[in-house]
Each structure stands twice: as C-alpha cells, then as structure tokens.
C-alpha cells in the first residue's frame, strides 16, 4: 500500500498530475491496482468516483491486474487489411487464451488496440509498448520467446 502512496505523492504538486501518477503506477505494475485509485483520490483531493472515472476513461490504463507482458494487436484499418486477424489467431492459439484474457501463470495478456503509429510496416503489435513490425503468424514464437 505505501508503495502506491510514494509513487503517487511525486506527482501531487504537478497541475493535472493525476494522469501522470497513473502512468507512473502503470510503469511499475503494468496496470493500476484498484486500491491505488482510492489513494490517488485522497492525495489529489478529488472524490474516488472522479479518480476512478479518469482511470477508466483511457484505454491505455487498465484498472485491476493483467499479465507481465501485455500484447496489444492493432486492428485499425491499415493493419486489418494487412492481415491482423491471422496474427490474432496465432497468438490465441499459441498462448491458449482469447483476446482480453491473461494466461494462467500471469505472464501474458492479449488486448486489441487501435493504430499505434507504426503503419509503415503493418500488421503491428506491441509488447509492453514496444512495437513489432510486419508481424506474421510465423514471427510469433520468436516474439514470445523474447519475453523472459
């Protein structure tokens, strides 16, 4: 609990710092722990409802646990026509989970996302924000084995 407080405190005096604090929490945990929302509300002097409302508005933030490696697949039109669906199928098959789920060992989470601005080499996926370009089903095992 106190770990959250220390992280959030750092942004307390920055105007509009709540979102920056959430980014910092997510850098630490890969998600925003539920309890941290209540702490953030106290520290920034806003209602818990408001702090929760901000955290859940943004798709980059995830309240509640997810895997250590968050794999996001771009499904915007350019990636879609380049074959994003096959990449999704390969990831689901190899990890044994569906989109939106986390593997039993808490290692991987699969999520859809929209364009991540790397459209020169579609389809694109990101692993903890790091982009992988021109992804095909054949490249998936290699990408997964990098996650150690």
């Amino acid at each position, binding site marked *: 609990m106190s770990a959250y407080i220390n992280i959030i405190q750092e942004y307390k005096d920055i*105007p*509009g*710092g*709540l*979102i*920056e604090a*959430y*980014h910092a929490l997510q850098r630490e945990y890969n998600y925003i722990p539920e309890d941290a929302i209540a702490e953030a509300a106290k520290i*920034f002097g806003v209602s818990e409802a408001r702090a929760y*409302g*901000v955290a859940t*508005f*943004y*798709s*980059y*933030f995830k309240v509640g646990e997810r895997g250590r490696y968050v794999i996001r697949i771009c*499904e*915007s*039109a*350019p990636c*879609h*026509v*380049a074959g994003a669906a096959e990449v999704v199928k390969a990831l689901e098959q190899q990890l044994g989970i569906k989109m939106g789920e986390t593997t039993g060992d808490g290692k991987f989470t699969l999520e859809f*996302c*929209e*364009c*991540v*601005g*790397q*459209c*020169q*080499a*579609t389809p694109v996926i*990101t692993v903890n*924000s790091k982009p992988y370009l021109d992804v095909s089903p054949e490249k998936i095992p290699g990408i997964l084995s990098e996650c150690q």
Partner: protein
Amino acid sequence: MAEEMRIVLRNYGKIDPLNIEDYLKAGGYKGLEKARAMSQIDLINEVKKSGLRGRGGAGFNAGAKWSFSYNTGAEVKYVVCNADEGEPGTYKDRIIMENDPQSLLEGMAICGYAIGAQKGYIYCRGEYPYVVDILNQAIDQAKAKGVLGDFDIEVRMGAGAYVCGEETALIESIEGHRGEPRFKPPFPPVAGLWSNPTIVNNVETFANIPVILEKGADWYSSIGAKSYPGTKVLTLTGDVNNRIFIEVPTDTTIRQVIYDFGGGIPDNKKFKAVQIGGTSGGFIPESLLDTSIDFDSMSGIGAALGSGAVFVMDETRDIVDVVQRITKFFEHESCGKCTPCREGTKRMNEIICRLNSGQGLAYDLTTLEKLGRVMSVACLCGLGQAAPAPVLTTLKHFADDYSAHLN
C-alpha cells in the same frame, strides 16, 4: 514525375536528433532569434501572411489564431503542441519528433514570444513513450544551451483516447480530467488551459514556423496551392507498393501521390479506393484522383486532407468490411458526452455489422444515410461530426459493394 520538397523534414537524416549542436549548425534557432528581434504584432502578421494553415485537420490560419490570444492581454497564456496523433494510418508527427525535435521546440518558442506565453506543453500520445524520452532530452539540451530563454516546455503523456486529439478534450486531459470535449465558445485561444488563453497547434504546424521566419512569408506562400500553401507530410499505407512517408507541395494530386510516390498498386491489381486524412476521412474513387491534396480541394470533393494519412485499397477489398472496422473504431472512441455521437456511433456500427454479415436490408441503407446526416450536424465535437464520413462517402461512391451484401 512529381518531386518531394522537404521543409518540415529539412533536417531528416542530416542531423543527430539528440544533439542540439547539429541542429544549431544546420541553422537552428535562427528563426527564433529573428522573431525576437521583431515586435509581436509584426511577427504574427508575418506568420499570417505566409498563409500557413493548421496541419492537424481543421486548417485554420495559424497567424490568425495566434492573434486571438495576443489580443486578450491576459497575464498567463499557454502554448500547447498537439502530438496526440491518433488518426489510424498516421505517423508523420512521430517522424518529425524522432528526427528533428528541436524544430518543434523552436516553433513553440516563437509562438510563445508572439502571444506572450512563458509556458508550453507537448501532449504526446501514450503509445509513443520512446518519443517522450526524445522530447525530454531535447528540452534538457535546449535549456542547458539557453536557447529557449524564459520559455519553458513540459511534456505530458496521453493515455490512449482518440478524442483527446480534439483540442478542448486535450486540454481537459492535461488538466488531469477525463478527456471530454468542452462546449465552444469560448475557444481555447481565448479561454483554454486552466481557463487561460491557449494556442493549440499540431506538431507539423509548429515545425513549419522556424523556416517561415528564416526564409520569409512570401517564399512560403508561393509554394504549393494558393489557399493552403506549403507542403504536407503524408503517410502511405494499405495496398500500395511503397508504404512510405513523403513531404510534397500541397498542389500535388492524389494520383501523383499513389502512383509517382507510392509506386502504384501491388501485384498488378487495380485501384479501388483511397481514404485520405485518417479514419474519419472520406473514401475517394478513381474518378476523383486528379484532385490536388490541399485542404480546400479535398473539401470540394467531399473528402478531407486531415492528418495526411493515405490508405489505399485494391480491387479485391470489400468496402463494407473495411467500413465495419471504422464504425467499430468510432463506437469505441466516442467519449459518450453527447447523445448523437454516443448512440449514433453505436447504431451505425450495428447496422454495418448486420450488412457485413449478409443480414442487411435495403432499408438499412436509407437509415444509415439519414443517421449519418444527423450526426454530422448534431454531434458536439469533430469526432461525431466526422464519424459518418466514411459511411456516407462509400454509400455514394461504392454503392455496389453495399448492394452485394443485401439479404
């Protein structure tokens, strides 16, 4: 054969973006020096005269926008750079920031001097954490060199909400709130960030400013299309041989973009459609390819230049399937503040899904058209207003694709 012209990307590949000395050697910060030797009014008039219009989608004259903030006489004002770059198929602001971050900082500092602001924010999308690092390093170097004078710049990170590219939603987000657009007026140049006068400009707009100062308004206004002078950075995606970015004068035609620069359609297939300006842009058929890409010519054919994304589709693409991706995008990205957008994007996606799965009826097409027309005038912000464009333009130009899906 049309040729590129690099103004915004003048330093691309020529300097080390993480070394301010390189930028200075290439003539960097001369524009700011020149600006500071001018009166604020003369500076604003020079930018106005260049004819530079916003590169973020709305196409407003940059100098004219600055004059609104200048005229307020408020004590605290802000300069905000819109680096949210959320339009699918767009990555031009990333290319600018990764390769020449100082030119963005210089453009912002010139704006700061012009309107009388001491503080600037760059709102960079959360998907670009590596760009945030570059920007912070560039700011540290500029501060250490003292080139920015008393102008301070801070980077804020977005968190994956397309609507935060809309300037008032972006301001809400910097303030630490949900990114919901505000009612306008008042417009940001008069009352923006923390209710203070705020200029929001796109990355590419700011990156043009130092050159305009250096080479003069007359030089700039003579390039490209008369009513939207200068160049535009475009990003080519989809069914095109060269999936590249280019910077071209604004009087370049769509056909030149796709064939001269893009190298045409792969595998000897035929061209079917191009969507320009990102996901909210209209679809353009073969018959309109000789249109020039400038803002007004594009509006003239019911399309938009927007962010400059150029998404090409070949003859094998099913338009309804692509449009379904787009309507799902808008349903997801609608912030829910206003009813026509919240409900409209949902129903629009529902109908398109029905059509795409072969369950649609002719009646659905009429409903789509009506819904689209209502949304384009009734929605609070540009998201909902532009969301129907892909549907309406495909209904118009690619009616056969829809008929083929009817039950």
